[in-house]
């Protein structure tokens, strides 16, 4: 019997969550004091859940690899957070947010979860304002909104280009209040290295203190994984250097199914790779596509001349430029969704029209916007016959007000002035929609092991819309998990403290010790980064923006071979019983080397194109993604059986009762 019961409550879509909350069991406040919960990860999803569970009265232990919960990578989110508040009166509603999210995800997410997300979204804004998150406001003192890609309303709340930072610091402050009360015990600079299962239930973790190297046992009545996404399997991504799949992968190997690993979001506007030394990629916010026009040279000779530095982009006249998004998608133009924009950039670069020394970049040009705004400003100031210089000066001021911090960031990295010469951008790995499979209660296939935020698969289908990641993290943490986990914990009120001297803890700890000993004693010849970079190359070239069966098969074989080479030849200096950054990296890369193979396998089995998953064999004559709803309208949940190349597929069929399934078109 398959364990894939999504546990979606019966009844009309809009009533499911309310009804479910009324039906589930509660835990008496006096009993909550006797129940422990472990939270792995302290970003938006983990931090918010830890604070809420502690407020409710549970004893919470939080774990993060950073030196403080405030540094989790949620902090880097720029643009904003969606909520169906309809403050603008522009027709927004829970249904519309639900509809946009399902459609944006290319009809590969679960209706009931997405509707709940939309339903609680408005509460997130109320909550964050109450805890002092300084959102942007209008002159009247009310909250401001802006628009994001793929939708027709203004529902995005923001705090300049630092929305993620402000929301995370809000959750961190809620955590701090509970730490001060003694209800949360934080274990910072700690990394979870295994899950402990006792009598079929998640009952604790094995963690390593990253300062002393000590291996610790921690028990609890439930374990929550909120450790983020796995974009770093590509080596280069917009993720933080330490972002990793380890917690998710360890629970996967203990029995949690892993869903849709191949669904990866490749964001179209990032600063391109400059050389082999590059350690990470930097995002330039999606909002820039409101005013920037994307182009490459029309003629290959011009592209070649620009690559060699013989020509400058501004030497090319409008006729010599190919504004390919405007050409291919006249109605959406430069504002097509992320997956479409990324593929189009790759297509032009692969065809030989790319710029930058590497040929792997396209231009994002603000000259038209500067001219347009400049003329508008001149007219507002009563100058109806402005000189070209005056127009440019005024136009630049407008652009600076809108995007000043992004332009400054670009200039620091690339050393070119984007007000004078077009920006160069290229797509980069940004977010992973796939993750641990969870049911409606956010519980994995291991009883007592819950997964929230980017680490789970649940809400974004095959493509995520902008400003929805923050919404999901906080919805899961503040408003969903605290209810659903209570239902499970209500059966544990008489259990008492979980002992850590059991054979299950012995077994897990020994396994961790063996792994670490093997790594530090390996005495190979190559660094961890050497292998991580190689893995990244395979992933990017064969499992990246466009995939095909042949490449995916060879990727699986290459990753397997690389994994064997890693275990034979990796060199990890230093010891286990001290701070050892190389050892930390090694344990993470070891897991990426397994996940990578499953990723390719998942991409190979999905014989269709949907959202961020584009299979070259499945496209329309115009090169657009071609879904196969008849055969692939399901969640692919993989069961680990000892070898990532031979995992067993379980299918959760997706049913759309409230939405008509259509093909996406942006022409």
């Amino acid at each position, binding site marked *: 019997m398959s364990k894939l019961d999504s546990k979606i409550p019966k009844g009309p879509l809009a009533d499911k969550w309310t009804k479910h909350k009324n039906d589930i069991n509660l835990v008496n406040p006096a009993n909550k004091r006797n129940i422990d919960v472990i939270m792995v990860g302290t970003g938006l999803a983990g931090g918010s859940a830890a604070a809420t569970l502690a407020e409710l009265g549970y004893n919470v232990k939080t774990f993060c690899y950073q030196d403080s919960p405030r540094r989790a990578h949620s902090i880097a989110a720029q643009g904003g957070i969606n909520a169906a508040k309809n403050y603008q009166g522009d027709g927004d509603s829970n249904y519309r947010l639900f509809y946009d999210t399902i459609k944006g995800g290319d009809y590969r997410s679960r209706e009931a979860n997405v509707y709940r997300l939309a339903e609680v979204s408005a509460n997130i804004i109320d909550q964050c304002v109450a*805890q002092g998150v300084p959102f942007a406001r209008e002159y009247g003192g009310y909250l401001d909104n802006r628009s994001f890609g793929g939708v027709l309303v203004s529902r995005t709340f923001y705090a300049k280009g630092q929305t993620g930072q402000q929301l995370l610091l809000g959750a961190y402050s809620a955590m701090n209040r509970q730490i001060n009360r003694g209800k949360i015990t934080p274990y910072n600079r700690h990394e979870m290295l295994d899950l402990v299962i006792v009598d079929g239930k998640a009952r604790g973790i094995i963690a390593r203190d990253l300062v002393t190297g000590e291996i610790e046992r921690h028990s609890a009545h439930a374990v929550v994984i909120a450790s983020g996404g796995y974009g770093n399997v590509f080596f280069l991504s917009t993720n933080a250097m330490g972002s990793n799949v380890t917690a998710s992968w360890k629970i996967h190997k203990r029995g949690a199914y892993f869903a849709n690993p191949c669904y990866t979001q490749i964001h179209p506007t990032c600063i391109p790779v400059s050389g082999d030394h590059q350690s990470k990629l930097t995002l330039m916010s999606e909002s820039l596509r409101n005013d920037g026009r994307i182009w490459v040279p029309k003629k290959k000779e011009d592209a070649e001349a620009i690559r060699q530095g013989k020509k400058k982009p501004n030497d090319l006249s409008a006729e010599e430029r190919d504004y390919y998004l405007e050409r291919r998608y006249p109605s959406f133009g430069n504002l097509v969704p992320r997956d479409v924009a990324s593929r189009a950039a790759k297509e032009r670069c692969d065809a030989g029209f790319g710029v930058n020394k590497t040929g792997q970049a396209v231009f994002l040009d603000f000259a038209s916007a500067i001219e347009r705004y400049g003329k508008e400003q001149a007219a507002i100031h009563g100058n109806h016959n402005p000189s070209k210089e005056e127009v440019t000066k005024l136009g630049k001021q407008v652009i600076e007000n809108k995007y000043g911090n992004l332009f400054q960031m670009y200039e620091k990295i690339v050393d070119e002035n984007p007000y004078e010469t077009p920006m160069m951008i290229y797509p980069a790995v940004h977010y992973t929609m796939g993750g641990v499979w969870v049911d409606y209660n956010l519980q994995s296939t291991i009883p007592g092991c819950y997964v929230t935020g980017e680490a789970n698969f649940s809400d974004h289908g095959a493509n995520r819309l902008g400003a929805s990641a923050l919404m999901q993290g906080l919805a899961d943490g503040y408003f969903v998990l605290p209810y659903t986990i209570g239902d499970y914990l209500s059966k544990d009120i008489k259990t008492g403290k979980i002992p850590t001297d059991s054979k299950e803890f012995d077994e897990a700890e020994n396994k961790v010790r063996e792994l670490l000993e093997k790594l530090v004693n390996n005495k190979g010849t190559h660094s961890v980064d050497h292998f991580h970079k190689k893995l990244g190359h395979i992933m990017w070239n064969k499992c990246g923006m466009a995939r095909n069966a042949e490449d995916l098969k060879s990727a699986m074989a290459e990753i397997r071979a690389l994994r064997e080479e890693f275990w034979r030849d990796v060199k990890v200096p230093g010891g286990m019983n001290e701070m050892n950054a190389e050892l930390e990296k090694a344990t993470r890369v070891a897991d990426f080397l397994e996940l990578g193979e499953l990723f390719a396998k998942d991409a190979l089995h999905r014989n269709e194109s949907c959202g961020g998953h584009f299979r070259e064999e499945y496209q329309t004559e115009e090169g657009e993604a071609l879904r196969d709803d008849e055969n692939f309208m399901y969640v692919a949940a993989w069961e680990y059986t000892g070898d990532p190349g031979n995992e067993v597929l379980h299918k959760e069929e997706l049913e759309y009762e409230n939405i008509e399934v259509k093909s996406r078109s942006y022409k």
Partner: protein
Amino acid sequence: MKLTLKIWRQKNATTKGELKTYPIDGVEGDMSFLEMLDVLNEGLINKGEEPVVFDHDCREGICGSCSLQINGEPHGPDRLVTTCQLHMRMFNDGDTIVIEPFRAKAFPVIKDLVVDRSAFDRIQQAGGYISVNTSGNTIDANTIPVNKHDADESFNAATCIGCGACVAACKNASAMLFTSAKVSQFALLPQGRIEATERVLNMVAQMDKEGFGNCSNTGACEIECPKGISLENIARMNREYLSASLKG
């Protein structure tokens, strides 16, 4: 570029550290400072030596992990950037660069360039929050309008990334800029006023307990702050503290 690096090496919190010299070649202007250290470390690993340990994570100037004292300045010679955003084009061929951890009594060295900044967390735990439960059942977000100027000032204070550069820059190792940024964020918002008295008293008490020094208005913290947190926040905290003390 060829450079000479003088880097603080210290095995752990209890052993003594020292500056060690490492020549490095092939440094490109496009590299970030931390990517230059990655190259150094790759070389050290290949030679069988232990790599230099330093804190870093997001590498885009927002997480606040990176923390190096470069040629005597927190986050190095550029302005309004963190070490991870500092690029090697700021240096010249043949330069000697001294790299040390942030120095303060309240930031003990853990290893090499890594320091313990948990004192900052404890200051926040002492009162850096508004006591509202996270049920979501509060009032509608637009019930209380907030003057845009105050909201913007509150936001500016809230952009502190908690890196500790202010402490490392200060001759007294004072944490006033850090603490005042959080006090200001809430003091400027109506929902933060309710607990303003206890908040400032508790956070300042914790700051003192952690061993941070006093503020003598030198202003080095503001100059070195990668986020440009203003000294005005310290003045505001002093006012808040005075009025809280009179009340209390």
